[in-house]
């Protein structure tokens, strides 16, 4: 039995190539049926995300699974195989297991430690399961990959610190306010960056968003997109004491919020804490504002610095995660090899049982009629001898399964007992 993964990802292929190969949800069923219908392929899985397209298969020993997958990809997506080849990678057996574990644990992701990939892999598995494309080796490896990912996440805490500017801002807001559900957010300036940050804040539970912009139309567009409330640009200062978080991204070439203004604002809100996120360049908020008690100001560089620090921390944790994965790969390989010798062990047991039954039949006529107790004793005696005899070879078979040279020993045992006859 062979295991093979072939595909491409954000490191090996540009987005134009990745999008050519991507499978959508609707075509996945037919593609899986096509994949496992190909000669020699017993199981298959298709993982298609914006950063990767990978096909994993379990196949018989007689086929080249990598070539099968390459043909499959080229044919299904209508791409020239020669044009595709430079972007593809291929992992087999232990390497494939390692790759799958790394993907599930988000060590192979564009942003190491991001949590989405595990969900995407689980969805791909669910689709394969629903279409009957997994149910043996590959399934065992996949379910193990989910456990490994969980272990990596728990033991290393790799995904705990945010690494993007927007998610860092949300994390900081949480460190100041705890739950964000009751917080009011004012967005000053309705640019793309602000939109992204608001999206993060919204998904973190913020309900009340107020938008102000010099151009009313853009404020209206953003307010509509996030079910926000428009505040007149000329009057936003009056509304500030009611806001807990202020996000500034205006293109104004001067400070929109100065220290004296913010002092009045914080006094008006009776010193309840306030978080100012200034992602504008040039900055919209005077840095001296951060000197005020209960006002926390982070500009784009501050946020990037925290995100970078978190990224460094993730890299350190990734090293620990790699060690966990290596340990899990060894364990998985050993388990699979142990599974490989199961047919040999079963054959050995059957062979010995055949011999026992034949010998019993041969001597039964000489022994004459036996009582029930004698029959039972004879049965126990012969079975006991066989079990003791078989114990050594079977233990050796299991032991040799995980050894590099084990195949030869297994072969020798098969020949010794004529298991292939």
């Amino acid at each position, binding site marked *: 039995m062979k295991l093979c993964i072939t595909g491409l990802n954000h490191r090996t292929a540009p987005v134009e190539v990745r999008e050519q190969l991507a499978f959508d949800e609707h075509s996945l069923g037919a593609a899986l049926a096509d994949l496992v219908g190909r000669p020699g392929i017993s199981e298959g899985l298709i993982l298609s995300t914006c950063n990767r397209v990978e096909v994993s298969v379990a196949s018989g020993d007689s086929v080249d699974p990598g070539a099968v997958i390459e043909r499959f990809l080229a044919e299904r997506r209508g791409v020239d195989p020669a044009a595709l080849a430079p972007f593809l990678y291929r992992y087999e057996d232990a390497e494939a297991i390692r790759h799958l574990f790394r993907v599930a644990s988000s060590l192979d992701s564009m942003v190491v430690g991001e949590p989405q990939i595990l969900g995407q892999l689980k969805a791909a598995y669910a689709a394969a399961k629903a279409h009957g494309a997994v149910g043996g080796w590959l399934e065992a490896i996949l379910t193990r990959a989910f456990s490994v990912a969980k272990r990596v996440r728990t033991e290393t*805490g790799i995904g*705990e*610190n945010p690494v993007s500017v927007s998610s860092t801002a949300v*994390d*900081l807001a*949480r*460190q*100041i*306010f*705890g739950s964000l559900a009751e917080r009011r957010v004012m967005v000053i300036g309705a640019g793309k960056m602000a939109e992204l940050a608001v999206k993060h804040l919204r998904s973190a539970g913020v309900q009340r968003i107020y938008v102000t912009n010099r151009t009313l139309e853009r404020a209206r567009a953003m307010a509509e997109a996030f079910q926000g409330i428009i505040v007149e640009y000329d009057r936003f200062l009056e509304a500030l004491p009611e806001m807990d978080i202020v996000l500034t991204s205006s293109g104004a070439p001067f400070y929109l919020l100065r220290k004296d203004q913010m002092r009045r604002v914080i*006094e008006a809100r*009776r*010193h*309840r*804490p306030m978080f100012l996120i200034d992602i504008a360049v040039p900055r919209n908020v005077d840095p001296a504002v*951060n000197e005020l*008690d*209960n006002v*926390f100001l*982070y500009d784009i560089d*501050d946020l990037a*610095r*925290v995100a970078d*620090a978190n990224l460094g921390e993730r890299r350190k944790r990734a090293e620990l995660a790699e060690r966990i994965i290596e340990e899990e790969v060894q364990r998985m390989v050993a388990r699979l090899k142990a599974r490989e010798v199961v047919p040999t062990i079963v054959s050995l047991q059957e062979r010995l049982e055949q011999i026992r039954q034949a010998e019993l039949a041969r001597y039964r006529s000489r022994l004459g009629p036996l009582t029930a107790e004698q029959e039972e004793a004879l049965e126990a005696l012969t079975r006991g001898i066989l079990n003791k005899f078989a114990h050594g070879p079977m233990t050796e078979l299991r032991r040799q399964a995980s050894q590099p040279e084990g195949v030869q020993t297994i072969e020798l045992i098969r020949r010794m007992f004529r298991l292939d006859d």
Partner: protein
Amino acid sequence: MQEMSLFWLRVAAVFYSVGMLHALVLALRRASRLFPVALTAFGVGAILHAVSIIEQTRLTGHFPANNFFESASLCALLSALLYLFVWWRYRVRNLCLFIFPLVFVLTLISALASPLARWGDERVRDAWLVVHVVLVLAGYAALAVTAVASIAYLIRERQIKRKLALPKSAEAPALLTLDELIGRGMTAGFVLITLAVVAGSTWASIESGARWIRDPRILISLATWGLYLVMVFLRASAGWRGRKAAVMVIALVGCSALTWAAHTSLRTLFAP
């Protein structure tokens, strides 16, 4: 103090106690419907207080600031009158959180210039003392929790403010949570310590007459309570929270430790 003067002063203290109750409810729940009643009682208390002082002046023939008790009484009346004027002129309600307890405690101390009664039963005496001690310890426990929250707040605030390496969100409570804990711990401690001051002053007055107030250790305790009162008032009225509140709590813990140390040798004062 003469009998009638003292009687009116004690009745005034009873009226002031309604204001005190309102202040404690306000500190604990941040809202109280008692204010109209408390203000009326406070006004009546001030009138009776004035009657007491006039009576005292008439009988002794001198200005009633001759000793600590008289001075405390006069100070309490002036504070009460000043508050009533400010209320009449500006309708500033929040000030009551500071003035009501202050006036009540000062009046209570003045009213304890001579013992209220004698101990009829030793068990009542001991039980009263136990109540005082339990209230003080509960107050200190609340203060200890508040102090821990304050230290945690200062560390977290510094990390966020100075943009230092931040801990994971899940590892430490949010600043606002810590601030709320400080606020709640502070008010709970204040209520307990105030009740302990009332119970302790009354007990000490019955136990040892007027001499208890001259002990510097008692004065340290009252000063600590006064600091506590200022802190609760500043938080409620001026919105002192966050860093300022945390620093104040830590200062208060220092004063409380001093009070504690002073009290460990109090037994000598009440020794027969």
